[in-house]
């Protein structure tokens, strides 16, 4: 039996510690992991728990992130609770196995501490790795701060391990900005947290020796399409419904409310910024300032990136005149992912908002309140004139010559 930790009601944790504590409280059977900046402390914290008998599962310290996810897949298929953490290049290295984890319907939970992708090499936060995983069949949730990394870290097991869902789930947090910034985090006691998550209930477990299971079969043109269709269906329906259900249960338990998209100052908003990660909190501050000046500005933070909250966004933006999509990943030859996803939603509204795209913060470049203020100012001009007054895509805070397209 692992020893429990008596947590304070509010602990001072950074995002990595918040993630580690959620993993510890879930009483995971197997963690297979490999350290990489900025998620390294998750692996280190977990090692410390092990050294102090605060976890009783297996901790397999593998030789690469590809092996980390391979070990997680084998362990999960064997039939038990499994989780890991990674970032950036490590995430890219395990990409092959991410698709296999979701295709084999294995409920693995992974904290992804977001960081830029090389080249040039960079250890700081942006969303390049998050975007790389967006077609991998995982449920993707985004935490904007340490509290949310902890809360989502608990809820993820309950969502992912549901027998109708059986899909792996990532919890994203911003590298350094969230992962290494100490904040007050409201905690649940070990017992309350574990009881909320519940015991792991195996399904198609390889270790069910009287009912052997086969995982990772070959299919060609005869069945592959149907497998993928079913997976997409379950992600779109069961995963989404279960996520909302778990959000509701968590609110009943803690009073902390989560939803597919987080809306701030959106009542009667004329203009809105849609973004992810720590930028949501910066944008909220500026929106509040704007409101005091009589400008009806609001912010939408994307909580669940996959399955994409199409209806929720469509509804939230239906009366908004101008919208900015803030992408923290280089689109490399296109408009940003958020821009494109939002455009799909807006297109179905009777009066589609005027949509513009801002690329920002690559490799850890700061996004300041002034930057956000400038975006809102441009959005206001778009709203007032009823047309796009700027290029469709602009790069914020870029040194040297301005960069814009379309």
């Amino acid at each position: 039996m692992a020893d429990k930790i008596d947590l304070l009601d509010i602990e001072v944790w950074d995002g990595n510690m918040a993630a580690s504590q959620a993993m510890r409280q879930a009483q995971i059977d197997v963690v297979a992991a490999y350290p990489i900046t900025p998620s390294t402390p998750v692996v280190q914290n977990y090692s410390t728990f092990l050294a102090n008998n605060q976890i009783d599962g297996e901790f397999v310290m593998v030789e690469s992130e590809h092996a980390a996810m391979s070990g997680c897949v084998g362990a999960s298929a064997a039939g038990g609770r499994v989780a890991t953490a990674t970032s950036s290049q490590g995430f890219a290295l395990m990409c092959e196995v991410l698709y296999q984890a979701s295709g084999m319907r294995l409920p693995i939970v992974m904290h992804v501490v977001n960081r830029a992708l090389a080249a040039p090499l960079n250890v700081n936060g942006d969303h390049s790795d998050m975007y790389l995983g967006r077609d991998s069949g995982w449920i993707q949730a985004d935490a904007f701060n340490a509290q949310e990394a902890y809360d989502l870290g608990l809820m993820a097991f309950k969502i992912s391990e549901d027998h109708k869902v059986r899909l792996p789930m990532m919890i994203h947090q911003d590298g350094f900005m969230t992962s290494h910034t100490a904040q007050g985090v409201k905690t649940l006691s070990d017992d309350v947290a574990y009881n909320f998550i519940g015991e792991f209930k195996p399904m198609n477990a390889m270790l069910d020796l009287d009912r052997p299971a086969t995982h990772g079969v070959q299919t060609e043109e005869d069945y592959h399409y149907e497998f993928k269709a079913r997976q997409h269906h379950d992600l779109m329906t069961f995963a989404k419904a279960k996520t909302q259900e778990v959000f509701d249960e968590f609110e009943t338990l803690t009073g902390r409310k989560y939803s597919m998209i987080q809306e701030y100052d959106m009542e009667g908003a004329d203009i809105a910024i849609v973004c992810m990660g720590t930028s949501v909190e910066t944008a909220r501050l500026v929106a509040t300032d704007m409101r005091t000046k009589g400008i009806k500005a609001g912010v939408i933070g994307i909580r669940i990136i996959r399955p994409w909250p199409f209806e929720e966004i469509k509804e939230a933006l239906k009366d908004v005149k101008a919208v900015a999509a803030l992408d923290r990943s280089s689109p490399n030859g296109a408009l940003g992912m958020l821009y494109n996803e939002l455009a799909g939603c807006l297109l179905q509204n009777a009066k589609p908002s005027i949509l513009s795209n801002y690329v920002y913060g690559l490799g850890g470049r700061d996004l300041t309140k002034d930057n956000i203020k400038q975006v809102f100012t441009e959005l206001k001009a778009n709203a007032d004139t009823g047309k796009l007054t700027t290029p469709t895509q602009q790069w914020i805070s870029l040194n040297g010559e301005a960069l814009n397209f379309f």
Partner: protein
Amino acid sequence: MSEIKKIKNLKEFSTSADRFEGANLLCPGCAHSIIVREILNATNDDLILGSSTGCLEVCTAVYPYTSWDNSWIHIGFENSSTAIAGAEAMHKAKKRKGTLISDRDPKFVAFGGDGSTYDIGFQWISGCFERGHDMMYVCLDNEVYANTGGQRSSATPIGSSTVTTPAGSHSYGEKKDKKDMLSIMAAHNAPYVAQVAPNKWKDMIKKIQTGFATEGPVYINAMSACTTEWKFDPADTIAVSDLATDSLVFPLYEIINGTELNITYRPKNIVPVKDYLGAQGRFKHLFKPENAHVLDEWQKRTDAKWDLLQRREEARV
């Protein structure tokens, strides 16, 4: 502790319960199926099995069918070892916590071809052995990427004509010598590594059972004659395998705890290497006069390797 199955003779063996279904898609004459069947039949314990992408995998688990009477997993080309290590870790964790579904202790076995063992999956296997998982890794070594049509691997021996090292007017085929995987795995201080061949089935079963009784990572390099890529008649698999072991191209030996090397088969009549090479289409071009030096080189290297093995056996290093 694994249950040691007593098998006295070939007839008894041929009638022992099959845990690997004969209904699979492997080529007629493929040694893979012989080896896998023998390994599975060597124990009555439950098995948790993994296969890397390759002939064995694509021929035994084509949805909605399976040839495996045990739990089985395939992830990718490089990681059957780590998949099985993950399953073994899960068993360990659940046993400690008292949450196992079944109270029996299974054995954990991963299979890979030489491509997924010597080449693409090398790092994963090394990691598993360094960490000391209680598992067996079996390389079905047919010295070529057979599943994808016969490209060379780092297990392809000198002079072999493959589709990526074809013999031609200016080439005698593969130029490099095969990687010594057994020594590499022994150098991980693995408690048990062994080379086996399906024609020497008693020797093979004994080694597999030793492997199952060993705690920690066990590496088995199984020579798997490939009728398609080695180019011989499907009826001749065992005959070609006999030539391989009797010419000492595939010496049968084991290494215990990284140092104690035992030769487990000494042919009464050692046959010339060229007899083994001559039985296979992949070496046909070596019998042209301009390639005579490659035949000489082959014999020289085989003799040297056999000499080294004997000296290591004697010196216990």
